[in-house]
């Protein structure tokens, strides 16, 4: 769980001593049930893990991380003899965001080091330096680390170049990969049919909306007059999002008494991450259930970003720009951070797509005023879907949640492959961090990671640990539905994917500022820029890697 989120939850729940005792009592009661306690020692272990240090008992310290690392060591002990890796030294490269990530891993791995005899050296990087450091290491052939914490979008850069070590079968069993939510199963984490990734995190965009807009009688009667005859209810499709957004322009927000707005599109770039938000609008139109590809044509790497599906998404945004008061003033300078934290949570705007953080912060952030009036859903669908195979629209409803960024994972580099002992040691360390039980702790306490396993959505465990059940179900429900959606839009894990996003942001900014004549022209400019990047990186290799990433 992200640290600010944890703090906010604790603050919001006002976890008093009494309430804490209630939670402990509930947990104790659960544990006291002889049937559970005796029959399932594993469940007991998980409950015990969740007590370190105890929800609301302050932020966990290095001692807590070590304790958790010690408690989950059972899986390692089943595969590794004590002292088996004596003399092995490994280098681990990861992040130091918010003093989490690598700091946690250090604590978790300390008992593992003591047991196995291996020693780990650490390379800590700030998020801003991460991409450049990784790319330079790869480009200059100076991979000086054995284990890396890495986001799935970089798999093309690393796995595609054969720089990572294939996961041994015993690791797969140790970490119970069948427990992963659907979208993190193959092909994510795999390349050419081989598995490389130990997941430790999950990511996707979900839809948040203001329930008070839809409970408001004045708005309902106005919609009855001005609307399309449909019921005044939270929109399920982008077509309805558009209609509601245009309708809401000029209305009054029932909560703040200020101007009401509909959907909040971030119109400014965000270092490549802003393109995910146009994807949210485009995926239901562009991701056909019968086709795993949606951003490029896998046979030619021809961009699909200028096909009618994406043009529709861009046009929708342009239509709202052209509608007076459909967006707050200065929306052209609003990035995703602004739309989420300065606008939606602060009571501006009726609808938003974002990662799980915002859905939960709505209830717990000190600056949020929408906690009691926010509802969640998966990414809106569409009433039609573009079939790239037949180059035609199909008038069938479609849904496709956007699995934006795919989350962090642990990867072992191929540098260890030549040394059997080092190879096993590196994979054992990775498996220790990606274990099922440690995952539960990481989602319940500040770690910087979101849930990524089905077992992490067992709400009884959360409630027993002291969390508010309604809150947790709200927070996790829309994520779970997105994660396991059969037509989820999975990010292409090709080399340089953020280069494509970054240049798209620049061209979109020009389009939104009216420097291109139409949505089609904007999309064509993006496609032309993407073609250049593909040619520069190497078209043939990109085709090969894209197909590999899609599992074709």
């Amino acid at each position, binding site marked *: 769980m992200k640290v600010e989120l944890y703090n906010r939850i604790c603050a919001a729940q006002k976890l008093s001593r009494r309430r804490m005792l209630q939670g402990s009592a509930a947990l104790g009661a659960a544990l006291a049930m002889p049937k559970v306690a005796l029959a399932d020692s594993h469940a007991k272990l998980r409950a015990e893990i969740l007590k370190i240090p105890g929800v609301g008992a302050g932020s966990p310290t290095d001692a807590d991380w070590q304790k958790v690392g010690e408690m989950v060591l059972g899986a390692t002990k089943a595969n590794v003899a004590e002292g088996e890796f004596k003399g092995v030294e490994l280098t681990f490269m990861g992040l130091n965001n918010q003093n989490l990530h690598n700091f946690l891993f250090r604590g978790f791995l300390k008992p593992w080091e003591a047991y196995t005899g291996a020693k780990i050296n650490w390379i800590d990087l700030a998020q801003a330096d991460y991409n450049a450091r990784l790319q330079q290491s790869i480009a200059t052939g100076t991979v000086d680390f054995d284990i890396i914490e890495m986001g799935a979008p970089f798999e093309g850069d690393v796995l595609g170049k054969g720089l990572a070590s294939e996961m041994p079968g015993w690791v797969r069993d140790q970490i119970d990969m069948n427990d992963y939510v659907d979208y993190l199963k193959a092909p994510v984490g795999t390349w050419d049919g081989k598995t490389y990734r130990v997941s430790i995190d999950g990511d996707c965009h979900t839809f948040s909306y203001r329930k008070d807009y839809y409970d408001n009688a004045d708005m309902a009667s106005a919609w009855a007059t001005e609307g399309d005859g449909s019921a005044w209810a939270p929109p399920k499709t982008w077509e309805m999002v558009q209609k509601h957004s245009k309708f809401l322009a000029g209305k009054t927000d029932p909560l703040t008494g200020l101007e009401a707005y509909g959907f909040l599109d971030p119109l400014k770039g965000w270092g490549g991450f802003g393109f995910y938000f146009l994807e949210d609008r485009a995926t239901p139109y562009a991701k056909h259930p019968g086709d795993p590809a949606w951003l490029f044509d896998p046979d030619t790497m021809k961009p699909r970003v200028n096909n009618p599906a994406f043009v529709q998404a861009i046009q929708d945004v342009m239509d709202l720009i052209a509608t007076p008061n459909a967006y707050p003033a200065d929306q052209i300078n609003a990035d995703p951070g*602004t739309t989420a934290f300065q606008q939606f949570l602060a009571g501006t705007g009726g609808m938003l797509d974002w990662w799980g953080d915002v859905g939960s912060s709505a209830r717990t952030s000190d600056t949020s005023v929408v906690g009691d009036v926010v509802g969640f859903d998966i990414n809106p669908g569409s009433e039609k879907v573009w079939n790239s195979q037949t180059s035609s629209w199909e008038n069938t409803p479609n849904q496709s949640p956007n699995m934006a960024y795919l989350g962090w994972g642990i990867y072992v580099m191929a540098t260890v492959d030549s040394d059997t002992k080092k190879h096993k040691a590196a994979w054992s360390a990775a498996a220790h961090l990606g274990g099922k039980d440690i995952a539960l702790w990481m989602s319940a306490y500040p770690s910087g990671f979101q849930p990524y396993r089905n077992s992490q959505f067992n709400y009884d465990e959360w409630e027993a640990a002291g969390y508010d059940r309604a809150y947790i179900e709200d927070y996790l429900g829309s994520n779970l539905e997105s994660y396991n959606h059969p037509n989820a839009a999975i990010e292409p894990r090709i080399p340089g994917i953020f*280069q494509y996003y970054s240049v798209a942001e620049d061209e979109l900014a020009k389009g939104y500022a009216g420097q291109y004549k139409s949505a089609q022209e904007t999309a064509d400019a993006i496609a032309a820029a993407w073609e250049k990047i593909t040619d520069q990186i190497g078209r043939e290799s990109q085709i090969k890697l894209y197909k590999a990433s899609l599992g074709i």
Partner: protein
Amino acid sequence: MTTEGDLLHTVTSERISALRRRAGRSLVWVTGLGFLAIALWQGLYSFQKVGWGFDTWRPVLFAYLVWATALCAAQVIVRGEAGKRTLFILPAVLFVVSLVVFPLLFGLYISFTDWNLASQDGMKPNGLDNLRQMWNDTFFWNALKNMIYYVLAVLVEYAIAFGLAVLLNAQIRGRKFFRVAFLLPLMLSPVAVSWMIGKSMMEIRFGPLARLARELGWDRPSFFGTPEMARFTIMAMDAWTFIPFMMIMLLAGLQALPKEVIEASKVDGATPWQSFREVIFPLMLPVSVTAIVIRIIFKLKLADIIINVTSGGPGGATDSVTSFIFREYRDRSNVGYGTLLAMVYLVLIVIFITLLLKFASRFLERPQ
């Protein structure tokens, strides 16, 4: 022990044998040739012309360090006392060559390559392709055009800074307080300015500046909504940060003016405006030109506020060359093209500043 000659300065005998000279020269040649041989071999290896070589270029660096050390030592071996004098400057020269000249030349080489860090094939020399790409790159020319606006804004900043400097030079109440208060923005990091002012105070719903604007009758304040407004706002934030810098330079200049000349003008019956226009302003020209030139150099590096507040938008209206290169190089890992843009910008800056200094040189001498 000798008792004749220059006892104060001569600390070693100047009698250097031919053998010692030869040994010194040989040391330089042997280590130099060794360095060149290793560098050449490693170069051939990296271009796959020979079958084996080092994994990294580090041994070449070590060979260079050995040669550099030998070169320094040889100065003393070959030339004795005179060589020691050379040693005062030679390590610094080698240091500059290593860390400035070599990277510059290497950067020049990179700028004529197709090098995308995500590419499977690595760096590939591509002739003048990057220059051609730059020629057709509307983003680059747009950023360069914006730089003209940004640089022209320095004149307005100068006028404001001069006005403030004159005020602070006058006998006003609380002068010391205002001198410190006006300097405060300069002490802030532009990144802090970006967030505190650009992102918080100008936030359109709650930001105090937006509230003030509404109080003043601007119903829907928008500081970044149109290209012109966004560019103006960026200029204003940058000006707010750096006007104190110009102001303090001008204030120092004002305080150094000869009082008797100004008093003489008053005695001669000049009005305050005449005194300023005919005496103070001309006397201040050298300081003014220096302040403007330094400020322009600062301005040409403008990037942080833009990157943080507008990312160059809307539609490139606020992009500076540096912020564009930042996106091209960092976000898109386009090392070859990004380096070329930086090199071209460097050349443009050198030409511009040279012309500017030449033009300004006539003002740099105070009128007699």
